[in-house]
């Protein structure tokens, strides 16, 4: 019984392999169909974009960014990107701790997006990409009249013009939809990971321009208005 089942398994396997080889190898004289040549040029132009989430954050809270980007379209597939922004934080006299944190500084990002949709030339795109980013900024950290709970002395706490910098990497996932003519709208979700940093002599930075509220990593969202030029 066992012998019979083994021999039937071997014969089935042989037949399957032979069939597979027949399908994989075209018969003599039969030509493989040629792929249609893509007539879309390699260089497809530039696009500029502006983020709306950062300004909204600035309106609704005490920190945020103004950010623009220049994107090159290579064959609707590769998109080298340069992003430039101005980060701003003005957290004055925290209601619990009484601390003030101020900074305003530019930042930039360089990177690349890939259109991961199968139909590259569609008006809708799905991006995956990365960015390298850097900012060099100065911040003020102040607390007037910090009281010592035991000795009951009061002293002004903090420093002004603390020099800091930060390098970080971002993983980007985005969606871009053509609205009308050269106008697009798009979302990007970014996972940010700090690489190297210096945060001055008195501890940590609270807000890093372009990175957000400080930590070793961060997750942010951009909503972009994009114009093809």
């Amino acid at each position, binding site marked *: 019984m066992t012998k019979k089942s083994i021999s039937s398994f071997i014969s089935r396997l042989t037949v399957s392999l032979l069939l597979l080889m027949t399908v994989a190898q075209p018969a003599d004289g039969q030509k493989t169909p040629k792929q249609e040549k893509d007539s879309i040029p390699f260089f497809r132009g530039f696009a500029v974009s502006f983020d709306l989430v950062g300004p909204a954050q600035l309106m609704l809270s005490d920190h945020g960014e103004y950010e623009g980007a220049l994107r090159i379209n290579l064959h609707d597939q590769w998109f080298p990107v340069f992003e430039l922004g101005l980060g701003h934080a003005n*957290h004055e006299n*925290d209601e*619990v*701790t*009484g*601390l*003030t*944190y101020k900074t305003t500084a530019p930042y930039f990002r360089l990177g690349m997006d890939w259109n991961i949709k199968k139909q590259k030339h569609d008006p809708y795109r799905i991006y995956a990409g990365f960015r390298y980013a850097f900012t060099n900024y100065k911040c003020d*950290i102040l*607390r007037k009249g*910090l009281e*010592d*709970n*035991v*000795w*009951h*002395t009061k*002293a002004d*706490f*903090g*420093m002004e013009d603390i020099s800091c910098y930060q390098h970080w990497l971002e993983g980007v996932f985005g*969606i871009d939809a053509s609205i009308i003519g050269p106008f697009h709208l798009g*979302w990007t*979700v970014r996972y940010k990971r700090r690489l190297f940093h210096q945060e001055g*002599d*008195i*501890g*940590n930075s*609270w807000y890093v321009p372009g990175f957000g509220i*400080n*930590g070793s990593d961060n*997750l*942010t*969202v951009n909503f972009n208005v994009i114009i093809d030029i």
Partner: protein
Amino acid sequence: MRKIVAFIFLIIAVVSCVSVDCPVQNRVETTYALKKPSGGPDTLGADTLTVWTHRIKYTDNKRDSILVNRLCGAKATSFAVLVSHTLPEDSLFTMLKDTTGRQWLDTICIRKDNFPHFESVDCQATYFHHITELKTTHHGIDSISIKNREVSYDKEEHFFLYLKANR
């Protein structure tokens, strides 16, 4: 498309969360370890130890501020004392009392450099310190030595305190 919209809303929900990352241990203290001359841990046993300081600003009769109140017992091998934010020198007064009522008063003076320390706008501002000099009187205290000069949130032993054996 629905999945993409749901994903975007999920991401917005995650991004809009706020977390406060203040250290759980946020007291800046010096730790005094009681030591025997042999180097092993000492204990107060039935004796009691009280530590206090003088406030710089105080109302009428409230000059003293108790930092350690009648520490005693076989497990009392160390104690922690808060450090002033910005004073160049902290003066601590100790009173060691035995079961017969005898007491020994001493003064410990700690000179230090003070450095402001900031974690986040959500966390209370504080100062870290570098101990530069340590002096004491020798009524109940035999000697005191510095083990670690840096004072921060870390709970390390900063001083070795040797009490007189016969008091």
